[in-house]
């Protein structure tokens, strides 16, 4: 639900917040004092759903952030279970540790072998803690690179699923070269001699996302986000006020539509009305269809042509001009 925002971003949000608070109050009342308020609650529910509908019809960037982070949003393991068969998980970077925040696996898509990597967020608190909320350590990125090298060796496509708040900002992560690991992955992916498809499914959080997101094709779920900094972080830096995150979300142009306009994203994969969590199968279906659409051509493209195109794709991103000073 779109509720726990650090500050309402619109009248609709405020209306919805009020309605949800009132519904909750009535529910508690009904429960504690055994009063039948089902009718009143139903009326309010309908009104709340109506407001939600309005929000979903034209969600603000901050709404999209909420959807991208929604606790019920399909996670990597849901996607992998639905999209692939014969999944064999690989573990470890062969250097230091197996990082549960990053998945690496061999699998088949429509019967064809692929290598799957992705940020591995949890679905509940316990799993989230075990998986460090999808925030990898350097060893996570190094595991992913190792798996990508397997893909490269056999010329199997790599499919990378992006969903992370960012690389883990901890002391040990720094000590083991978080920046180096990200830089290395970016460089190696830019010249990996096999097709790479990137699917941004939830939060595309800065360098920690990009470290597995340099490929031939960048697909993005409709309500996923991809950003250089979290809206909260941006607001804190710009206005010293994290509660202006909604405003920052707007400014950062982090939605799929914005990113497509900036040519960072190649294709938007439609989500069901109200977000992927409302109908996970539909969201997964959109991913499946996109992979089916693109994989055959990528598989057949000669490696050198692939690498030229991949280089050109990132080489041209940016907006520069001649200075006026």
């Amino acid at each position, binding site marked *: 639900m779109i509720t726990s925002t650090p500050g309402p971003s619109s009248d609709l949000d405020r209306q919805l917040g009020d309605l949800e608070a009132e519904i909750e109050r009535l529910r508690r009342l009904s429960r504690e004092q055994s009063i039948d308020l089902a009718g009143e609650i139903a009326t309010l529910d309908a009104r709340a759903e109506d407001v939600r509908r309005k929000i979903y019809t034209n969600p603000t960037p901050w709404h999209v952030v909420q959807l991208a982070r929604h606790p019920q949003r399909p996670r990597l393991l849901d996607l992998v279970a639905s999209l692939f068969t014969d999944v064999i998980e690989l573990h470890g970077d062969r250097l230091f540790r197996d990082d549960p925040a990053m998945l690496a696996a061999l699998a088949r898509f429509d019967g064809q072998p692929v290598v799957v990597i992705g940020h591995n967020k949890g679905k509940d608190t316990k799993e989230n803690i075990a998986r460090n909320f999808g925030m990898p350590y350097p060893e996570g990125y190094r595991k992913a690179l190792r798996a990508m090298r397997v893909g490269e060796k056999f010329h199997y496509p790599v499919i990378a699923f992006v969903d992370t708040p960012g690389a883990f900002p901890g002391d040990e992560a720094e000590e083991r070269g978080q*920046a*180096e690991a*990200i830089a290395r992955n970016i460089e190696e992916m830019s010249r990996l001699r096999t097709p790479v498809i990137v699917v941004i499914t939830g939060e595309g959080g800065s360098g920690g996302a990009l470290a597995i997101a340099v490929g031939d094709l960048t697909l993005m779920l409709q309500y996923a986000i991809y*950003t*250089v900094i979290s809206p909260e972080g941006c607001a804190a*830096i710009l206005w010293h006020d994290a509660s202006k995150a909604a405003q920052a979300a707007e400014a950062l142009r982090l939605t799929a539509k914005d990113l497509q306009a900036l040519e960072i994203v190649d294709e938007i994969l439609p989500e069901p009305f109200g977000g992927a969590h409302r109908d996970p199968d539909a969201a997964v279906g959109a991913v499946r269809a996109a992979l089916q659409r693109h994989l055959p051509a990528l598989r057949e493209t000669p490696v050198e042509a692939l690498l030229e195109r991949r280089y050109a794709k990132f080489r041209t991103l940016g*907006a520069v001009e001649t200075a006026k000073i």
Partner: protein
Amino acid sequence: MLNWLRRPKYRSLQRREMPAGLWAKCPRCTNLIYRKELERNLKVCPKCAYHHRLPAIERLEITLDEDSFAEFDADLTSADPLKFEGYPQKLNEARQKTGRPEAVITGDGTIEGYRTVIGALDFHFMGGSMGSAVGEKVARAAEQARDRRLPLVIFSASGGARMQEGALSLMQLAKTSAAIGRLHDAGLPYLSVMCDPTTGGVTASFAFLGDVVLAEPGALIGFAGRRVIEQTIRRKLPDDFQTAEFCLKKGLLDMVVPRSEMRSTVARLLSFFGAPKVEAVSVEAPARTETPQVAESRSGGSAAEG
């Protein structure tokens, strides 16, 4: 474009950086240092060896042979692709402050006679942040090095990606790293020097991808900021955390080199990696006239690309 290091703009920048007065106070040891002595000492405190941050232009001046530099893309700057609130003003302020259009200077020149493509990021320009123009200039420098079979040397000093260009800034990590990847594939040397501070997106891209990675003493080097880390781990970090010396022990750097030895060290590395050497250093490097495509690119890439 030549001899720009002597342009009045630079002198005025100098004055701005070091406010008037015979004495300067060292921010680390708080000693008062005779300003002329500090300048003579390459802005390294003679008492405590604190390495003052250098504007890109001064970095190039103390690194390159005199009059050897020719700038690439001097006028290139970031546009405002997101129409980000306040960004044009911030850019203007930075330009006023530094006398430079962007947070990186790139070009070619010689170091002890060794020809190289070189770049220096400017922390004084919006914290050395990497937006489209910084990424573009670094990528072009790498491509120049590749096309002309020259080494690449980059002095970094940056707080990371430039927020105001959103995900386009993030994409500069990919653009620059990909260009460095091609340089590596072409068998050309790339030396990365991290100066205080080098953090965020610049460490997570070209700055850590050198064949040899050097740093100045005491430089802050890391991906995440100290405050964020302390909030995350709910502990205080040791004082030396993320210093160059700390990173050296952790195996992340090849060497920490004092500023007084940096020029000669880079020259020795360039020599080792087979950089072409010009015979007479004092005048304009001869190669320039031989490579017309460079003169072209030097005219400054114009207009937006993305």
